[in-house]
Protein backbone atom coordinates (compact mmCIF):
# COMPACT_ATOMS: atom_id res chain seq x y z
CA UNK A 1 0.00 0.00 0.00
CA UNK A 2 2.86 2.38 0.82
CA UNK A 3 4.26 1.58 -2.61
CA UNK A 4 1.09 2.47 -4.50
CA UNK A 5 0.52 5.63 -2.45
CA UNK A 6 4.12 6.68 -3.07
CA UNK A 7 3.58 6.35 -6.80
CA UNK A 8 0.40 8.39 -6.63
CA UNK A 9 1.69 11.18 -4.46
CA UNK A 10 5.38 11.07 -5.28
CA UNK A 11 6.24 11.46 -1.61
CA UNK A 12 7.34 8.65 0.66
CA UNK A 13 6.55 10.44 3.91
CA UNK A 14 3.02 11.26 2.84
CA UNK A 15 2.53 7.66 1.67
CA UNK A 16 3.88 6.10 4.84
CA UNK A 17 1.92 8.31 7.18
CA UNK A 18 -1.30 8.00 5.20
CA UNK A 19 -1.02 4.21 5.29
CA UNK A 20 -0.41 4.29 9.04
CA UNK A 21 -3.42 6.58 9.55
CA UNK A 22 -5.63 4.27 7.50
CA UNK A 23 -4.61 1.27 9.61
CA UNK A 24 -5.23 3.27 12.79
CA UNK A 25 -8.69 4.24 11.50
CA UNK A 26 -9.41 0.59 10.73
CA UNK A 27 -8.29 -0.50 14.18
CA UNK A 28 -10.68 2.01 15.68
CA UNK A 29 -13.70 1.51 13.42
CA UNK A 30 -13.74 -2.15 12.43
CA UNK A 31 -14.26 -3.58 15.92
CA UNK A 32 -17.13 -1.13 16.41
CA UNK A 33 -18.76 -1.12 12.99
CA UNK A 34 -17.65 -4.46 11.63
CA UNK A 35 -15.07 -5.27 8.94
CA UNK A 36 -16.09 -3.80 5.55
CA UNK A 37 -16.81 -6.23 2.67
CA UNK A 38 -13.55 -5.32 0.92
CA UNK A 39 -11.04 -4.54 3.69
CA UNK A 40 -8.10 -4.00 1.30
CA UNK A 41 -10.07 -1.57 -0.84
CA UNK A 42 -11.35 0.24 2.24
CA UNK A 43 -7.80 0.70 3.51
CA UNK A 44 -6.54 1.90 0.13
CA UNK A 45 -9.36 4.41 -0.29
CA UNK A 46 -9.00 5.66 3.29
CA UNK A 47 -5.24 6.01 2.92
CA UNK A 48 -5.67 7.96 -0.34
CA UNK A 49 -8.10 10.34 1.38
CA UNK A 50 -5.71 10.72 4.31
CA UNK A 51 -2.85 11.48 1.94
CA UNK A 52 -4.87 14.18 0.21
CA UNK A 53 -5.89 15.64 3.57
CA UNK A 54 -2.26 15.68 4.58
CA UNK A 55 -1.18 17.42 1.40
CA UNK A 56 -3.95 19.98 1.90
CA UNK A 57 -2.88 20.58 5.47
CA UNK A 58 0.80 20.74 4.67
CA UNK A 59 0.63 23.18 1.86
CA UNK A 60 -1.54 26.17 1.22
CA UNK A 61 -0.22 26.39 -2.31
CA UNK A 62 -2.84 25.73 -4.93
CA UNK A 63 -0.45 24.02 -7.29
CA UNK A 64 0.23 21.09 -5.00
CA UNK A 65 -3.43 20.81 -4.11
CA UNK A 66 -4.31 20.65 -7.79
CA UNK A 67 -1.64 18.06 -8.33
CA UNK A 68 -3.14 15.88 -5.61
CA UNK A 69 -6.61 16.18 -7.08
CA UNK A 70 -5.38 15.24 -10.51
CA UNK A 71 -3.83 12.01 -9.32
CA UNK A 72 -6.77 11.10 -7.10
CA UNK A 73 -9.02 8.64 -8.82
CA UNK A 74 -12.02 6.88 -7.34
CA UNK A 75 -11.60 3.59 -9.13
CA UNK A 76 -10.97 0.72 -6.71
CA UNK A 77 -7.39 -0.56 -6.76
CA UNK A 78 -6.63 -3.54 -8.99
CA UNK A 79 -6.09 -6.77 -7.07
CA UNK A 80 -2.47 -7.57 -7.99
CA UNK A 81 -0.76 -6.23 -11.14
CA UNK A 82 -0.29 -2.52 -10.41
CA UNK A 83 0.37 -3.19 -6.73
CA UNK A 84 3.31 -5.42 -7.59
CA UNK A 85 4.58 -2.92 -10.14
CA UNK A 86 4.52 -0.31 -7.40
CA UNK A 87 6.53 -2.48 -5.04
CA UNK A 88 9.09 -3.11 -7.75
CA UNK A 89 9.38 0.63 -8.35
CA UNK A 90 9.79 1.17 -4.63
CA UNK A 91 12.60 -1.41 -4.44
CA UNK A 92 14.49 0.30 -7.23
CA UNK A 93 14.00 3.69 -5.58
CA UNK A 94 15.20 2.45 -2.18
CA UNK A 95 18.25 0.79 -3.75
CA UNK A 96 19.14 3.69 -6.04
CA UNK A 97 22.91 3.89 -6.64
CA UNK A 98 22.92 7.62 -5.81
CA UNK A 99 22.18 6.64 -2.18
CA UNK A 100 24.91 5.36 0.15
CA UNK A 101 24.80 1.61 0.76
CA UNK A 102 23.82 2.02 4.44
CA UNK A 103 20.98 4.32 3.40
CA UNK A 104 19.76 1.76 0.83
CA UNK A 105 19.75 -1.01 3.41
CA UNK A 106 17.89 1.10 5.97
CA UNK A 107 15.32 2.37 3.49
CA UNK A 108 14.67 -1.07 2.05
CA UNK A 109 14.13 -2.57 5.50
CA UNK A 110 11.88 0.31 6.54
CA UNK A 111 9.72 0.67 3.44
CA UNK A 112 9.65 -2.88 2.06
CA UNK A 113 10.43 -4.92 5.12
CA UNK A 114 8.32 -5.24 8.20
CA UNK A 115 10.84 -3.75 10.62
CA UNK A 116 10.39 -0.61 12.69
CA UNK A 117 13.10 2.05 12.89
CA UNK A 118 13.91 0.80 16.41
CA UNK A 119 14.35 -2.77 15.15
CA UNK A 120 16.56 -1.71 12.25
CA UNK A 121 18.65 0.41 14.61
CA UNK A 122 19.06 -2.53 16.98
CA UNK A 123 19.99 -4.86 14.13
CA UNK A 124 22.78 -2.55 12.99
CA UNK A 125 23.81 -1.55 16.52
CA UNK A 126 23.23 2.16 16.14
CA UNK A 127 21.12 4.55 18.19
CA UNK A 128 17.49 4.78 17.13
CA UNK A 129 17.89 8.53 16.56
CA UNK A 130 20.89 7.87 14.30
CA UNK A 131 18.93 5.36 12.22
CA UNK A 132 15.90 7.67 12.08
CA UNK A 133 18.15 10.47 10.84
CA UNK A 134 19.73 8.19 8.24
CA UNK A 135 16.30 7.23 6.88
CA UNK A 136 15.04 10.81 6.93
CA UNK A 137 18.13 12.03 5.10
CA UNK A 138 17.72 9.38 2.41
CA UNK A 139 14.04 10.23 1.95
CA UNK A 140 14.89 13.92 1.75
CA UNK A 141 17.44 13.20 -0.97
CA UNK A 142 14.96 11.09 -2.93
CA UNK A 143 12.56 14.01 -2.88
CA UNK A 144 14.97 16.92 -3.38
CA UNK A 145 17.11 15.28 -6.06
CA UNK A 146 14.05 13.80 -7.82
CA UNK A 147 15.22 10.23 -7.65
CA UNK A 148 12.65 8.63 -9.94
CA UNK A 149 10.03 6.22 -8.73
CA UNK A 150 10.10 3.73 -11.54
CA UNK A 151 11.69 0.58 -12.85
CA UNK A 152 14.96 1.56 -14.59
CA UNK A 153 15.38 1.70 -18.34
CA UNK A 154 16.17 -1.52 -20.15
CA UNK A 155 19.77 -0.43 -20.69
CA UNK A 156 20.31 -0.04 -16.94
CA UNK A 157 18.13 -2.74 -15.49
CA UNK A 158 20.82 -5.47 -15.23
CA UNK A 159 23.22 -3.26 -13.35
CA UNK A 160 20.52 -1.72 -11.18
CA UNK A 161 19.01 -5.11 -10.37
CA UNK A 162 22.47 -6.34 -9.36
CA UNK A 163 22.54 -3.41 -6.92
CA UNK A 164 19.14 -4.42 -5.48
CA UNK A 165 20.28 -8.03 -5.05
CA UNK A 166 23.47 -6.82 -3.34
CA UNK A 167 21.38 -4.90 -0.78
CA UNK A 168 19.22 -7.97 -0.05
CA UNK A 169 22.26 -10.26 0.23
CA UNK A 170 24.02 -7.81 2.55
CA UNK A 171 20.97 -7.83 4.83
CA UNK A 172 20.96 -11.63 4.76
CA UNK A 173 24.65 -11.93 5.58
CA UNK A 174 24.47 -9.48 8.44
CA UNK A 175 21.67 -11.63 9.85
CA UNK A 176 23.44 -14.90 9.18
CA UNK A 177 26.81 -14.02 10.68
CA UNK A 178 26.53 -10.75 12.54
CA UNK A 179 29.74 -8.77 12.27
CA UNK A 180 29.49 -7.48 15.83
CA UNK A 181 27.36 -7.61 18.95
CA UNK A 182 26.33 -10.33 21.39
CA UNK A 183 23.96 -12.26 19.12
CA UNK A 184 25.88 -14.42 16.64
CA UNK A 185 22.83 -14.52 14.37
CA UNK A 186 20.15 -11.90 13.84
CA UNK A 187 17.31 -14.05 12.67
CA UNK A 188 15.04 -11.07 12.03
CA UNK A 189 17.47 -9.79 9.38
CA UNK A 190 17.99 -13.07 7.54
CA UNK A 191 14.23 -13.76 7.65
CA UNK A 192 13.59 -10.30 6.28
CA UNK A 193 16.13 -10.80 3.48
CA UNK A 194 14.47 -14.09 2.49
CA UNK A 195 11.08 -12.37 2.50
CA UNK A 196 12.49 -9.69 0.18
CA UNK A 197 14.04 -12.41 -1.98
CA UNK A 198 10.64 -14.10 -2.31
CA UNK A 199 9.03 -10.75 -3.14
CA UNK A 200 11.60 -10.11 -5.90
CA UNK A 201 11.02 -13.63 -7.21
CA UNK A 202 7.27 -12.89 -7.44
CA UNK A 203 7.96 -9.62 -9.22
CA UNK A 204 10.67 -10.90 -11.58
CA UNK A 205 9.94 -14.62 -11.97
CA UNK A 206 12.09 -15.04 -15.10
CA UNK A 207 15.29 -13.54 -13.78
CA UNK A 208 18.00 -16.14 -13.15
CA UNK A 209 19.93 -14.16 -10.57
CA UNK A 210 16.77 -13.35 -8.59
CA UNK A 211 16.06 -17.10 -8.42
CA UNK A 212 19.75 -17.75 -7.68
CA UNK A 213 19.87 -15.34 -4.75
CA UNK A 214 16.69 -16.77 -3.24
CA UNK A 215 18.04 -20.33 -3.62
CA UNK A 216 21.37 -19.28 -2.09
CA UNK A 217 19.66 -17.71 0.93
CA UNK A 218 17.32 -20.69 1.42
CA UNK A 219 20.09 -23.27 1.24
CA UNK A 220 22.29 -21.26 3.60
CA UNK A 221 19.46 -20.57 6.03
CA UNK A 222 18.47 -24.24 6.01
CA UNK A 223 21.66 -24.97 7.96
CA UNK A 224 20.92 -22.35 10.61
CA UNK A 225 19.54 -24.82 13.23
CA UNK A 226 22.90 -26.66 13.20
CA UNK A 227 25.18 -23.66 13.05
CA UNK A 228 25.54 -22.64 16.68
CA UNK A 229 26.01 -25.20 19.48
CA UNK A 230 24.13 -25.17 22.76
CA UNK A 231 27.16 -23.54 24.35
CA UNK A 232 27.01 -20.69 21.84
CA UNK A 233 29.87 -21.85 19.68
CA UNK A 234 29.93 -21.69 15.89
CA UNK A 235 29.76 -25.17 14.33
CA UNK A 236 31.56 -25.49 11.00
CA UNK A 237 29.99 -27.27 8.05
CA UNK A 238 31.95 -30.51 8.52
CA UNK A 239 30.87 -30.84 12.18
CA UNK A 240 27.22 -29.87 11.80
CA UNK A 241 24.39 -32.25 12.63
CA UNK A 242 22.95 -32.65 9.16
CA UNK A 243 19.77 -34.13 10.60
CA UNK A 244 18.98 -30.72 12.05
CA UNK A 245 19.02 -29.00 8.66
CA UNK A 246 15.70 -27.65 7.44
CA UNK A 247 14.68 -30.06 4.68
CA UNK A 248 11.76 -27.94 3.47
CA UNK A 249 14.07 -24.99 2.75
CA UNK A 250 16.58 -27.28 1.05
CA UNK A 251 13.85 -28.74 -1.19
CA UNK A 252 12.67 -25.25 -2.12
CA UNK A 253 16.23 -24.11 -2.88
CA UNK A 254 16.96 -27.22 -4.93
CA UNK A 255 13.78 -26.74 -6.96
CA UNK A 256 14.92 -23.22 -7.86
CA UNK A 257 18.35 -24.51 -8.89
CA UNK A 258 16.82 -27.25 -11.07
CA UNK A 259 14.65 -24.61 -12.72
CA UNK A 260 17.74 -22.49 -13.45
CA UNK A 261 19.77 -25.44 -14.74
CA UNK A 262 16.99 -26.18 -17.24
CA UNK A 263 16.63 -22.52 -18.18
CA UNK A 264 20.35 -22.01 -18.77
CA UNK A 265 20.48 -25.24 -20.80
CA UNK A 266 17.78 -23.99 -23.19
CA UNK A 267 18.42 -20.24 -23.23
CA UNK A 268 22.20 -20.61 -23.18
CA UNK A 269 22.63 -17.70 -20.80
CA UNK A 270 25.46 -18.54 -18.38
CA UNK A 271 24.58 -18.52 -14.68
CA UNK A 272 25.54 -15.44 -12.69
CA UNK A 273 27.25 -15.22 -9.32
CA UNK A 274 24.23 -15.96 -7.13
CA UNK A 275 23.26 -19.00 -9.19
CA UNK A 276 26.83 -20.32 -8.94
CA UNK A 277 26.96 -19.73 -5.18
CA UNK A 278 23.58 -21.42 -4.80
CA UNK A 279 24.90 -24.41 -6.76
CA UNK A 280 27.95 -24.61 -4.46
CA UNK A 281 25.64 -24.65 -1.45
CA UNK A 282 23.52 -27.34 -3.07
CA UNK A 283 26.60 -29.57 -3.34
CA UNK A 284 26.97 -29.28 0.44
CA UNK A 285 23.31 -29.80 1.29
CA UNK A 286 23.16 -32.81 -1.08
CA UNK A 287 25.98 -34.63 0.72
CA UNK A 288 24.67 -37.08 3.36
CA UNK A 289 27.87 -36.50 5.39
CA UNK A 290 30.80 -34.08 5.20
CA UNK A 291 32.95 -36.94 3.90
CA UNK A 292 30.60 -37.45 0.93
CA UNK A 293 30.97 -33.86 -0.28
CA UNK A 294 31.75 -33.65 -3.98
CA UNK A 295 34.67 -31.26 -3.55
CA UNK A 296 35.84 -31.38 -7.18
CA UNK A 297 32.48 -29.98 -8.25
CA UNK A 298 32.84 -27.27 -5.59
CA UNK A 299 36.31 -26.39 -6.94
CA UNK A 300 34.95 -26.30 -10.51
CA UNK A 301 32.05 -24.04 -9.49
CA UNK A 302 34.39 -21.67 -7.66
CA UNK A 303 36.54 -21.65 -10.80
CA UNK A 304 33.54 -20.44 -12.80
CA UNK A 305 32.71 -17.89 -10.12
CA UNK A 306 36.28 -16.58 -10.33
CA UNK A 307 35.76 -15.83 -14.01
CA UNK A 308 32.86 -13.52 -13.05
CA UNK A 309 34.36 -12.19 -9.85
CA UNK A 310 38.11 -12.66 -9.39
CA UNK A 311 37.98 -11.08 -5.92
CA UNK A 312 40.31 -12.29 -3.14
CA UNK A 313 37.31 -13.60 -1.15
CA UNK A 314 36.27 -15.91 -3.98
CA UNK A 315 39.89 -17.05 -4.39
CA UNK A 316 40.06 -17.75 -0.65
CA UNK A 317 36.95 -19.94 -0.81
CA UNK A 318 38.27 -21.77 -3.82
CA UNK A 319 41.59 -22.42 -2.06
CA UNK A 320 39.74 -23.99 0.89
CA UNK A 321 37.95 -26.34 -1.54
CA UNK A 322 41.24 -27.09 -3.34
CA UNK A 323 42.72 -28.18 0.01
CA UNK A 324 39.95 -30.80 0.29
CA UNK A 325 40.80 -32.23 -3.13
CA UNK A 326 44.58 -31.85 -3.32
CA UNK A 327 45.55 -31.65 0.35
CA UNK A 328 46.25 -28.83 2.83
CA UNK A 329 49.69 -27.99 1.42
CA UNK A 330 48.29 -27.11 -2.03
CA UNK A 331 45.45 -25.11 -0.47
CA UNK A 332 47.90 -23.27 1.79
CA UNK A 333 50.09 -22.30 -1.15
CA UNK A 334 47.06 -20.67 -2.82
CA UNK A 335 45.91 -18.99 0.37
CA UNK A 336 49.33 -17.53 1.14
CA UNK A 337 49.25 -15.68 -2.17
CA UNK A 338 46.32 -13.65 -0.77
CA UNK A 339 48.14 -12.59 2.41
CA UNK A 340 48.72 -9.00 1.29
CA UNK A 341 45.11 -8.18 0.44
CA UNK A 342 43.30 -10.23 3.08
CA UNK A 343 45.56 -9.64 6.09
CA UNK A 344 42.81 -7.73 7.93
CA UNK A 345 40.09 -10.32 7.24
CA UNK A 346 39.33 -12.78 10.04
CA UNK A 347 38.17 -15.58 7.71
CA UNK A 348 41.53 -15.55 5.92
CA UNK A 349 43.39 -16.27 9.16
CA UNK A 350 40.76 -18.80 10.30
CA UNK A 351 41.07 -20.76 7.03
CA UNK A 352 44.84 -20.57 7.18
CA UNK A 353 44.90 -21.72 10.81
CA UNK A 354 42.79 -24.75 9.95
CA UNK A 355 44.99 -25.79 7.01
CA UNK A 356 48.20 -25.24 9.04
CA UNK A 357 46.73 -27.45 11.77
CA UNK A 358 45.98 -30.18 9.25
CA UNK A 359 49.47 -29.80 7.76
CA UNK A 360 50.80 -30.37 11.32
CA UNK A 361 52.39 -26.93 11.59
CA UNK A 362 51.08 -26.27 15.12
CA UNK A 363 53.08 -23.18 16.00
CA UNK A 364 52.07 -21.27 12.86
CA UNK A 365 48.52 -22.51 13.24
CA UNK A 366 48.32 -21.08 16.78
CA UNK A 367 49.55 -17.69 15.55
CA UNK A 368 46.95 -17.70 12.75
CA UNK A 369 44.15 -18.60 15.23
CA UNK A 370 45.28 -15.70 17.42
CA UNK A 371 45.01 -13.31 14.46
CA UNK A 372 41.56 -14.64 13.52
CA UNK A 373 40.29 -14.38 17.12
CA UNK A 374 41.54 -10.81 17.33
CA UNK A 375 39.80 -9.83 14.11
CA UNK A 376 36.36 -11.45 14.39
CA UNK A 377 33.53 -9.49 15.96
CA UNK A 378 31.22 -12.50 16.18
CA UNK A 379 30.97 -14.10 19.64
CA UNK A 380 30.13 -17.64 18.41
CA UNK A 381 33.01 -17.62 15.96
CA UNK A 382 35.38 -16.36 18.63
CA UNK A 383 34.33 -19.22 20.93
CA UNK A 384 34.87 -21.78 18.18
CA UNK A 385 38.28 -20.43 17.15
CA UNK A 386 39.44 -20.25 20.78
CA UNK A 387 38.54 -23.89 21.40
CA UNK A 388 40.30 -24.97 18.23
CA UNK A 389 43.41 -23.04 19.16
CA UNK A 390 43.46 -24.49 22.65
CA UNK A 391 43.15 -28.03 21.26
CA UNK A 392 46.42 -27.65 19.35
CA UNK A 393 48.98 -30.05 20.81
CA UNK A 394 52.19 -28.52 19.63
Amino acid sequence: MVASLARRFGDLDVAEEAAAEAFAAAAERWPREGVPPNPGGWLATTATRKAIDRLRRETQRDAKHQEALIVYDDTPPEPTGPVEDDRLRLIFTCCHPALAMEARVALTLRLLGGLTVAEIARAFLVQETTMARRITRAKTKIKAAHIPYRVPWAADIRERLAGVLAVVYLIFNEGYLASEGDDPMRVDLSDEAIRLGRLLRTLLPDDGEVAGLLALMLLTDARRPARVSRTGELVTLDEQDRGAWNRALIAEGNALIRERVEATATAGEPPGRYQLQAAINAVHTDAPSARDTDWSTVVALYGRLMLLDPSPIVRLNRAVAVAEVDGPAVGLAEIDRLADVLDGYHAFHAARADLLRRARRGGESRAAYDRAIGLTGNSAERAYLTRRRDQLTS
Partner: protein
Amino acid sequence: MSLVPRYLLSVYGPAERTELGTSTSGKAMPQATADVGAFTERLRRDGHFVFADGLEPVTTATTVDGQGERTFLTDGPYLVTEEQLDSFWVVEAADLDVALVLAAEGSRACGGAIEVRPFRTEGSEGTLLQP
Protein backbone atom coordinates in the same frame (compact mmCIF):
# COMPACT_ATOMS: atom_id res chain seq x y z
CA MET B 1 9.04 28.63 -11.56
CA SER B 2 9.93 25.81 -13.87
CA LEU B 3 8.26 22.45 -13.22
CA VAL B 4 11.18 20.52 -14.70
CA PRO B 5 13.83 19.80 -12.06
CA ARG B 6 17.09 21.69 -12.47
CA TYR B 7 20.54 20.46 -11.56
CA LEU B 8 23.90 22.12 -11.15
CA LEU B 9 26.65 20.04 -12.75
CA SER B 10 29.95 21.31 -11.34
CA VAL B 11 33.48 20.57 -12.36
CA TYR B 12 36.23 21.16 -9.82
CA GLY B 13 39.88 21.86 -10.43
CA PRO B 14 43.03 22.88 -8.55
CA ALA B 15 42.75 26.24 -6.77
CA GLU B 16 45.83 27.53 -8.54
CA ARG B 17 46.16 26.66 -12.17
CA THR B 18 49.89 26.32 -12.64
CA GLU B 19 50.00 24.47 -15.90
CA LEU B 20 48.04 25.68 -18.83
CA GLY B 21 47.19 23.26 -21.55
CA THR B 22 45.69 20.32 -19.63
CA SER B 23 42.35 19.74 -17.96
CA THR B 24 42.06 18.51 -14.34
CA SER B 25 42.67 14.91 -15.39
CA GLY B 26 45.41 15.79 -17.83
CA LYS B 27 43.22 15.44 -20.91
CA ALA B 28 44.70 17.49 -23.77
CA MET B 29 43.08 20.94 -23.68
CA PRO B 30 42.13 21.42 -27.36
CA GLN B 31 40.42 17.99 -27.29
CA ALA B 32 38.61 18.77 -24.00
CA THR B 33 37.43 22.13 -25.35
CA ALA B 34 36.04 20.49 -28.49
CA ASP B 35 34.35 17.70 -26.50
CA VAL B 36 32.84 20.14 -24.00
CA GLY B 37 31.54 22.24 -26.88
CA ALA B 38 29.91 19.20 -28.47
CA PHE B 39 28.39 18.18 -25.13
CA THR B 40 26.97 21.67 -24.52
CA GLU B 41 25.54 21.65 -28.03
CA ARG B 42 23.84 18.31 -27.31
CA LEU B 43 22.32 19.82 -24.13
CA ARG B 44 20.89 22.68 -26.19
CA ARG B 45 19.58 20.41 -28.92
CA ASP B 46 17.81 18.09 -26.47
CA GLY B 47 16.30 20.90 -24.41
CA HIS B 48 18.37 20.35 -21.25
CA PHE B 49 20.46 23.50 -21.45
CA VAL B 50 19.78 26.38 -19.06
CA PHE B 51 23.19 27.97 -18.57
CA ALA B 52 26.87 27.07 -18.61
CA ASP B 53 30.13 28.84 -18.04
CA GLY B 54 33.66 28.60 -16.71
CA LEU B 55 35.27 30.64 -13.96
CA GLU B 56 38.59 32.43 -13.56
CA PRO B 57 40.84 30.88 -10.87
CA VAL B 58 39.84 31.56 -7.21
CA THR B 59 43.00 33.65 -6.86
CA THR B 60 40.99 36.33 -8.71
CA ALA B 61 38.04 36.13 -6.30
CA THR B 62 37.16 38.71 -3.62
CA THR B 63 35.11 37.81 -0.57
CA VAL B 64 32.78 40.52 0.68
CA ASP B 65 31.18 40.59 4.16
CA GLY B 66 28.68 43.42 4.46
CA GLN B 67 26.99 42.21 7.64
CA GLY B 68 28.69 44.67 9.98
CA GLU B 69 28.82 48.45 9.96
CA ARG B 70 31.87 48.33 7.78
CA THR B 71 32.11 46.14 4.73
CA PHE B 72 35.04 43.74 4.91
CA LEU B 73 36.87 42.67 1.81
CA THR B 74 39.16 39.65 1.65
CA ASP B 75 41.38 38.81 -1.27
CA GLY B 76 40.57 35.22 -2.23
CA PRO B 77 37.79 32.63 -2.03
CA TYR B 78 35.27 32.17 0.82
CA LEU B 79 36.27 28.54 1.32
CA VAL B 80 39.96 27.75 1.29
CA THR B 81 40.26 24.32 -0.28
CA GLU B 82 42.79 22.75 -2.60
CA GLU B 83 40.18 22.26 -5.29
CA GLN B 84 37.65 24.86 -6.29
CA LEU B 85 34.69 25.24 -8.62
CA ASP B 86 36.06 25.59 -12.12
CA SER B 87 33.12 25.44 -14.47
CA PHE B 88 29.50 24.36 -14.44
CA TRP B 89 26.35 23.63 -16.36
CA VAL B 90 22.81 24.27 -15.21
CA VAL B 91 20.56 21.69 -16.83
CA GLU B 92 16.92 20.71 -16.82
CA ALA B 93 16.23 17.00 -16.55
CA ALA B 94 13.08 15.00 -15.90
CA ASP B 95 14.64 13.28 -12.88
CA LEU B 96 17.95 12.32 -11.30
CA ASP B 97 18.50 9.34 -13.61
CA VAL B 98 18.42 11.65 -16.63
CA ALA B 99 20.72 14.14 -14.89
CA LEU B 100 23.18 11.37 -14.02
CA VAL B 101 23.37 10.24 -17.64
CA LEU B 102 24.07 13.84 -18.70
CA ALA B 103 26.71 14.20 -15.99
CA ALA B 104 28.48 11.03 -17.13
CA GLU B 105 28.66 12.42 -20.67
CA GLY B 106 29.89 15.77 -19.37
CA SER B 107 32.51 14.05 -17.24
CA ARG B 108 33.89 12.21 -20.27
CA ALA B 109 33.87 15.43 -22.29
CA CYS B 110 35.74 17.62 -19.80
CA GLY B 111 37.98 14.94 -18.35
CA GLY B 112 37.02 15.39 -14.69
CA ALA B 113 34.52 14.22 -12.09
CA ILE B 114 31.20 16.07 -11.94
CA GLU B 115 29.08 16.86 -8.88
CA VAL B 116 25.34 16.72 -9.56
CA ARG B 117 23.30 18.85 -7.18
CA PRO B 118 19.58 19.56 -7.43
CA PHE B 119 18.27 23.12 -7.28
CA ARG B 120 15.70 23.94 -4.64
CA THR B 121 12.18 23.53 -5.83
CA GLU B 122 8.84 24.68 -4.55
CA GLY B 123 8.11 22.96 -1.28
CA SER B 124 11.70 22.23 -0.34
CA GLU B 125 12.74 23.71 2.95
CA GLY B 126 14.73 26.88 3.56
CA THR B 127 14.75 30.12 1.66
CA LEU B 128 17.43 31.56 -0.49
CA LEU B 129 18.42 34.46 1.69
CA GLN B 130 18.56 32.75 5.06
CA PRO B 131 22.10 32.43 6.42
